[in-house]
């Protein structure tokens, strides 16, 4: 039954790892803004900037 102590040690290390991952994610700003990315994903022109109104693009750019 002593093995249970080892298992507990492992589980604690794992849990601490998750805690550190969480703290890191907060620190790096991943939870700062939960709204904007939802809008950002709807922009379809990530590449060239050419948008739906192409005649204008042709004449000006």
């Amino acid at each position, binding site marked *: *039954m002593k093995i*249970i*102590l080892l298992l*507990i040690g492992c*589980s*604690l290390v794992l*849990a*601490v790892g*998750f*805690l550190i991952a*969480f*703290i890191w994610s*907060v*620190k790096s700003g991943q*939870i*700062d*803004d*939960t*709204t*904007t990315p939802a*809008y*950002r994903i*709807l*922009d379809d*022109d990530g590449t060239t*900037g*050419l*948008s*739906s*109104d192409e005649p*204008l*693009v042709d004449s*000006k*750019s």
Partner: protein
Amino acid sequence: MKKTIQTTACFHCGDACRSDSIRLGEHVFCCEGCKTVYQILEQNALCQYYTMDDKAGLKMDKPLSPGKYAFLDNPELSAPLFQFKKETTARVQFFIPEMHCASCIWLLERLYKLLPGVMESRVNFDRKEVAIQFNPEEVSIRQLVEKLSALGYEPSLNANREEKKDSKALLYRLGVAGFCAGNIMLFSFPEYLGMDTQSKEDFASVFQWLNVSLSLPVMFFAAQPFFIQAWKGLKHRNLNIDFPLALGISALFIRSIFEVVFHWGPGFFDSLSALVFFLLIGRWLQDRAYESLSFDRDFKSYFPLAVEVISEEETNMESAYVAIGALKVNQCIRVRNQELVPADSLLLDGKAYIDYSFVNGESEIEEMPVGSMIHAGGRQVGGAINLRVARPVSESYLSALWNQEEKMEGEERIKTFSDLVGRYFTIALVLIALATLLYWLPINPYKAFYAFTAVLIVACPCVLVVAAPFAFGNAMRWLAKKGIYLKNPDTVEKVARVDEVVFDKTGTLTEGSAHIEELYGVLNSADKTRLGELFTQSSHPVSRMMARYFSASAASNPISIKEFTGKGFEANYLGDTWRIGSRKWLVGQVGDIVSSSVCIEKNAKLVAEFSINWKFRSDLDDLFLDWELPRSLYSGDHASSREILERWFEKEAIHFECSPEMKLEVLKEKRESGHFPMMVGDGLNDAGALKEAWLGVAITEDVHAFTPACDVIMVGKSIHELPNFVRFCRNTLKTVKFSFLFSLVYNLVWMTFAVRGELQPILAALLMPISSITVFSINTLGIRYFARKEAIQ
């Protein structure tokens, strides 16, 4: 000549265009500003902007004065705006109040296409902020701000915006508490399953000591905010809602430690950490609700950030921009139209017409002779004036005045329902817990401690901490979707108490536009341009409408202007004397015209007259016919539309020709007689009355026109929602009261067990979150139900 309102919508901002003269290609615009923004976007192939949201564009009818951001060229003044600055990279973060839809995000994140030198811009929509990284060698911060302003996204440059650090600290605490609570629960399994005490003694003590060590971060890191708040409350001799929490948590902790040390039992570390975890979740939700709903009402944001300082010699009119904090006594400053006087100053020259409505709520404009003292916070209406600073900004009369008001508000807040309940509940709870402790102490010391903790925990008032702000914040969110904006969550409670309504007419019951007809006039086109410029100087709804009628832009030359409240104004402009105002004032007799009219005199000769037919909003039947609250109308106009109004108001409740002071008096009387009047009016002209009322509702066509005195800002086209709005707030308060009653009964029932020492603290800690969750659900579901019912969704 006759102009009718066009149904064409402006291609940029979507407002109705008053004429189709401003056009580009097949697109029609309501004003030059909107057209300019469209041109900028078109040239940069960013027209997708318009396809993303129906009402993407921002109305651009307030032209930007060219020198407004000149102060940013001064490195000393712009320094606080930078988050980071090196030779080729700099980073700034702007708060942009106008940000409102997906298109805004789209355009702001494509700033690099509009302005070479911008490397990246990132939007945080919840906080209405954009972080911009740019190369200061290619583009200056002034150009950046001016470009944003030209697009309609004028950043608010008050440097004192709250940092987000607190919320991050809370997240760390939440993470730690969750981690510890989870693990402690795991190590408590032996106790839960009853497999420890005799046979596996060694394991039990290992687990117990693990629990002790895991509970330390919970106590000394995660639960810290409760102790700090409780201590703050104690220092002010006030038992706040955090006090029993802090007491309960520490009692639980100390007792558990004793249990483990003296081998009495396993302690209650699982309850303790779960308790802190749940409480922090509640805090976090509350903070989030506050943050996204915060009405940035920071006082400093009304002040211009820098002021133009001029040198004293008459001949040398050089000027420079100086930050307000650096302003010194005896410096000369220039304040232009609509700018606020930043410090108490002496008037040197120029015609000062100071509007103190912001300071004392009286919307009368005072004319000040040269040499008189002008107090900080006054707003100049008219041409530019030169002033000499008499007292530094910090000592200013205004900040004292404002602080005074803050204090008053603080006292008033305690009267709100949730605060009252919270306060007495806390005191009662602590007393009951102490009584329990004292009762059991001589009989059974072990049980005494046990019961004391159980009482504090089972009746934990965290529901009260969270429920009301959460419910009101939720209600605010529903209302904002309908175009009704509340100053703060407590306003919901204020609305619920309203027992009568006072209306203003012009701009409130009438639409922002009117049918203007030129009755006669001998005006050439130069006259018309000048008239337009004159009308932009006044903020009266009639003037604003006339300015629009003339498609006016801002005045290019100095105007000396004098307003006569309720009559009109007089102006000297480019050598001509203009008098513009009501027929009664200028001609003397009212004549046979039924509608209101504006007469225009040039050099003491009547040159034109316009009739103004206010168009009542089309949804007034919806507003009035099914509304039980007593209501009255006080209008500054003359009685031309009495017949129409009698459809909606009692005959005796309609009052015409009221000055702003009279409205203020009326509201004062109503309040003194114990009523809770709601004033519905135009924010700019009724500021005094709005402030005097129990609840001030400013009706505005343009939400961004800021109105300091009111509690609620409502978009004009939502006015028919007023009855629903009041009903909704009442029902919200009822929901909150019901949930309080529920938790009170629930707590009382369990408290009877706890007082008798029959409730284990661990069970108490389990019962507590159940009550919280129930109360949460009652509030959320109840408010959603009422929002649907009143069609506020």
